[in-house]
């Protein structure tokens, strides 16, 4: 047995032992409770003067009067279950949810499996990686189908089907939308032609369309909201006049403001000089470009500092999941006490 495998086994055994100890002490750990809600709807058909019927639904309390019924479960805090059990040990209003409890443990397993990559590539990480690839690829395809194809493409081209099975409140689309969806269907079909044994080249046509339109759209948006807007923002007076008390000018603040404005203008110009391609960075241009690089480096340093904050918050959120939701070690939101 090599050393690495031994390390893994020891870590695993110690961890499992700690889990067992945690499970035996206090309130235990890692359970999810749910509250059941019965939903019943009755069908109401109303006939107007012309004899046309409209269908509406009313939420009803008694299951007998309902045409459609189902159950919904929502998560209940463990303290609600503790309280309910203390009052009546036979209650069924709040119950342990096996699917969600298993899910919670699975989520904890996946969290640890991904963290294990920090140590080294290993079988747990590979398993987590395979799962996330399979699940997420399918997830986005399902979302693409139900949230894009159905409400956009099918709603435009086969509205009756969508109305009957998915969204009775669907409104008819205008001509422009119909044509853009018909175009999308044709181009999408050409893309799929790649799967055919011959004539796969036709897939290059929709790609060319997408690239062309993207180029046309982006040139407008970038020149307008970036180039012109940022240029405009720099075309302000460098001299700042800051009003002080009693109508006089606050000299100190004005000098500082002027200096700041001057530094901004110098910075923009010198950093832009750095981006010049057709001039060698020598002499005056080289010197200016160097100042530009200093500005860029300060900008990057600032971005780094701010980004780090968010990253630590994300890690903290994962640890909170492990300590709070799974291990029940801490209870910052008072869900159990």
């Amino acid at each position: 047995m090599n050393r690495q495998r031994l390390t893994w086994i020891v870590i695993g055994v110690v961890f499992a032992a700690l889990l067992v100890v945690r499970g035996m002490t206090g309130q235990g750990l890692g359970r999810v409770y749910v509250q059941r809600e019965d939903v019943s709807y009755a069908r109401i058909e109303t006939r107007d003067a012309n004899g046309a019927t409209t269908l509406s639904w009313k939420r009803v309390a008694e299951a007998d009067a309902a045409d459609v019924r189902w159950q919904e479960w929502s998560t209940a805090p463990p303290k609600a279950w503790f309280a309910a059990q203390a009052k009546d040990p036979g209650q069924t209003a709040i119950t342990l949810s096996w699917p969600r409890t298993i899910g919670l443990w699975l989520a904890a397993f996946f969290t640890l499996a991904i963290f294990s990559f920090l140590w080294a590539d290993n079988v747990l990480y590979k398993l987590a990686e395979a799962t996330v690839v399979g699940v997420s690829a399918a997830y986005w395809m399902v979302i693409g189908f139900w949230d894009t194809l159905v409400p956009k493409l099918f709603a435009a081209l086969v509205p009756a089907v969508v109305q009957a099975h998915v969204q009775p409140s669907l409104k008819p689309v205008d001509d422009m939308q119909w044509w853009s969806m018909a175009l999308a269907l044709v181009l999408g079909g050409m893309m799929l032609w790649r799967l055919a044994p011959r004539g796969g080249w036709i897939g290059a046509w929709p790609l060319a369309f997408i690239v062309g339109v993207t180029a046309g759209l982006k040139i407008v948006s970038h020149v307008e909201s970036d180039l012109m807007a940022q240029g405009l923002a720099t075309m302000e007076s460098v001299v700042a006049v800051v009003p002080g008390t009693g109508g006089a000018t606050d000299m100190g603040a004005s000098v500082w403001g002027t200096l700041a404005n001057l530094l901004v203008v110098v910075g923009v110009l010198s950093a832009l000089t750095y981006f010049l391609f057709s001039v060698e960075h020598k002499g005056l241009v080289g010197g200016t470009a160097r100042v530009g690089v200093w500005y860029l480096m300060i900008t990057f340093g600032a971005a780094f500092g701010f980004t780090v904050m968010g990253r630590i918050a994300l890690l903290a959120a994962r640890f909170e999941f492990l300590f709070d939701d799974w291990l029940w070690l801490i209870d910052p939101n008072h869900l159990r006490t």
Partner: protein
Amino acid sequence: MDRAPHRLRSPWLWAAILAGCVIGWGRGQRAHADAGVAAAPAATESILNEHRLPLAAWIVGIGAATMIFVWRARRGKPPTIRRIAALEAVDEAIGRATEMGRPVLFIPGIQDMDNIQTVAGVTMLGRVAKTAAEYDATVEAPVCRSLVMEAAREAVQASCLAAGRADAYQPDRIHYVTDEQFGYVAHVGGKMMREKPAACFYMGCFFAESLIFSENGNSIGAIQIAGTAESSQLPFFVAACDYTLIGEEFFAASAYLSGEPDQLGTLQAQDSGKVAVMMFMVIGAAVATAGVLLPSATWLGELGVLLRKAMGG
């Protein structure tokens, strides 16, 4: 290359004709509206959006500069372009991968083809694939969008053909993983650790994954060259990669690597745009400052307004 057939196929000519047709159609619509056929309130407005005229002027200006510099370049006046270290290193990185017998990893960002950075990234993939085909190195490109996969395959196939190595094109090396950002990251991170590519290229639109990729690449000792226009991710690439193309440099990369006079000409056009913006900023700031210092000179104020209008203000 024979130029005669090109003239007929000159896209600019056709673009001009098309623009003319569209404007003509627009005018027809307007006449239609004026005749009361479609009496919409908008009928009183001009068909052309005058508020956007400065924008149109800027785009036409940059377009004209591009045409002029491309034309000059074609006439045998190739521009001189400064050295971009990151791009000089591309050949070296691919060469090293060939020597070590390990693959080259190319990530064209995590966005779809409707992002211009992805388009630029896929174009760069074509360039890298061409060099790799010449050196006989393999390029692996896992992608996270189906359309990007198709576009990347197109580009790589074309490059292999251009390098005279049609056999080097293996579509399965460019494969789709998942649309999900961190599912993709999990896969690429694991792949890097297992296959240990010798050179890693990150060219496109990146978000949080920039540092995960570049730190993993660093730990396996790969040469890393990155390029992106996402300013929030630039610090991480600058810190963790060997070379980084910053913002505009990334968009210039494909033209630079092509070495074709036409394409280098477009870089000069980019520069002339930059100089124009810089001049507007200097004059605009100077006029605004003078306006504050000499409040009595009303013509300065008027000039300032005019300059700001030219910038869409």
